């Protein structure tokens, strides 16, 4: 078989990231397809080498085909491009139970834009808890520079239970603990135990994001290294 076909199939299988046994079968099927296509093109008078490249071109890019061949919803789906889908999904866009990406949607979502039950990111929108630059949790707790939620904690906080340094527009019918009231609320924690509890809760929230960020980045880096090891040109 031509080296170009061999290399193309290697790349498809690399991106498909299936079990060894499945990969062998997929590869055999795709190889059969590409051989027939090449033979068909050659029979139509296309020079052999051009026929090989024509067959590959018509088949689609290795990444598109390979990613298409991944399991529908894997335990772990890490992608360098496109949308990752899995129990743990990591990619430019990610959809999963735990999702990590520039745009992440999941039960636990981490990303520049994160949407989930618990969301962490530059813009975090969550049902239960959001933590980020702009943090919105209409039904839950929001922690961020600007936080809006049933419980909101931030520089600018707005909501049912809002604690913030400056909350000029948060003082409305439902914001019971904004502005000066917020400071009064903090006085409840003046005891030693109260202060420790407050610091612990706050620190946990703020630590969770960088820790998860580190873990996810590490997994993502491993995927890049796996691809780079197989073919450095693929990650250039």
């Amino acid at each position: 078989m031509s080296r170009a076909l061999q290399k193309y199939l290697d790349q498809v299988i690399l991106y498909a990231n299936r079990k060894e046994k499945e990969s062998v079968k997929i590869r055999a099927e795709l190889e059969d397809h590409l051989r027939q296509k090449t033979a068909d093109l050659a029979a139509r008078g296309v020079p052999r080498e051009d026929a090989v490249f024509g067959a590959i071109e018509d088949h689609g890019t290795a990444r598109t085909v390979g990613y298409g061949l991944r399991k529908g919803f894997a335990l772990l789906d890490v992608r360098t491009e496109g949308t990752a889908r899995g129990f743990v999904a990591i990619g430019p866009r990610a959809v999963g139970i735990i999702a990590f990406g520039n745009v992440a949607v999941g039960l636990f979502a981490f990303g520049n834009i994160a949407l989930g039950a618990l969301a962490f990111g530059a813009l975090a929108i969550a049902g239960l808890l959001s933590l980020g630059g702009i943090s919105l949790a209409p039904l839950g707790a929001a922690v961020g520079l600007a936080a809006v939620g049933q419980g909101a904690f931030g520089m600018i906080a707005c909501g049912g239970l809002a604690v913030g340094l400056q909350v000029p527009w948060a003082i409305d019918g439902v914001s019971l603990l904004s502005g000066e009231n917020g400071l009064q609320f903090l006085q409840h924690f003046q005891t030693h135990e109260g202060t420790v509890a407050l610091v612990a809760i706050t620190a946990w929230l703020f630590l969770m994001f960088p820790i998860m960020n580190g873990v996810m980045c590490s997994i993502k880096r491993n995927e890049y290294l796996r691809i780079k090891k197989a073919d450095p040109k693929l990650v250039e």
Partner: protein
Amino acid sequence: MTRLSKQTLDGNVETLILAVLESGPSYGYAIVKELNERAEGILQLGEGTIYPVLYRLEEKKLIAARWRLAENGRQRKYYRLISKGHKALATNRRQWQMLSAAMGKVLGSAENLLPQPQVKGATI
């Protein structure tokens, strides 16, 4: 020639493959060829993209697959429609006919929808 966009095709490729397999067992390359011939070049499927669809149909148990020795002496995977697939195809066909009829009534007759030359579209 105008080609159908990926968005338009998404969700319908499964039905198209089921329709091809209705006429008998077939394998990947032959399915692609048959699809392109029947569609007279309008679909222009990215050939490798049918395999994820075939595997999905297999997982859904709409088709079954079996490796057999081909005429070139190599093992080849043949797909065939099974009863659940026949039912799904019948349902999809009915729904498509209803949608097609409704679209035709709203947008005009098929003649008015013929592709305009020199417009480039996406393929899948």
